[in-house]
């Protein structure tokens, strides 16, 4: 389902941070267009 998709990452300082999600998505066929880590609270 990630095939050919553009991905915007909204990580969470107290959950999964942006860089960790980036690592995961990098190993797929999707294209990362934005990544950030929010403080959700």
């Amino acid at each position, binding site marked *: *389902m*990630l095939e*050919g*998709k*553009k*991905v*915007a*990452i*909204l*990580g*969470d300082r*107290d*959950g*999964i*941070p*942006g860089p*960790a*999600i980036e*690592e*995961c*998505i990098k*190993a*797929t066929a*999707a294209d990362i*267009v*934005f990544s*950030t*880590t*929010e403080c*959700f*609270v």
Partner: protein
Amino acid sequence: MDLENQSRIKDLAEKYGKDDLIIVLGGGEAEASGMAAETVSQGDPAFAGPLAGVPLGLKAYHIFELKEEIDPAVYDEQVGMMEMVLDVEEIVNEVKMYRGD
């Protein structure tokens, strides 16, 4: 959701369209994750940011939902730890609810 990020997402949605762009969330807590999913699909529920009253219709997934799509070794290294401590089911249900599928 952070006001600046709302603005960024809005721009990206205009650029790529709602069929190509997906949002991946890393939220550590159900309510906030659901809210992020809601913000990018129906608009900012807090009516504070640029997405207030702007329904982009984007689909957001939590990284937990994408486990099958990701290299297990990488997933385990990056997410495994948090998967054990967080309430995965509650978070995923909340995100699903606001994604509307």
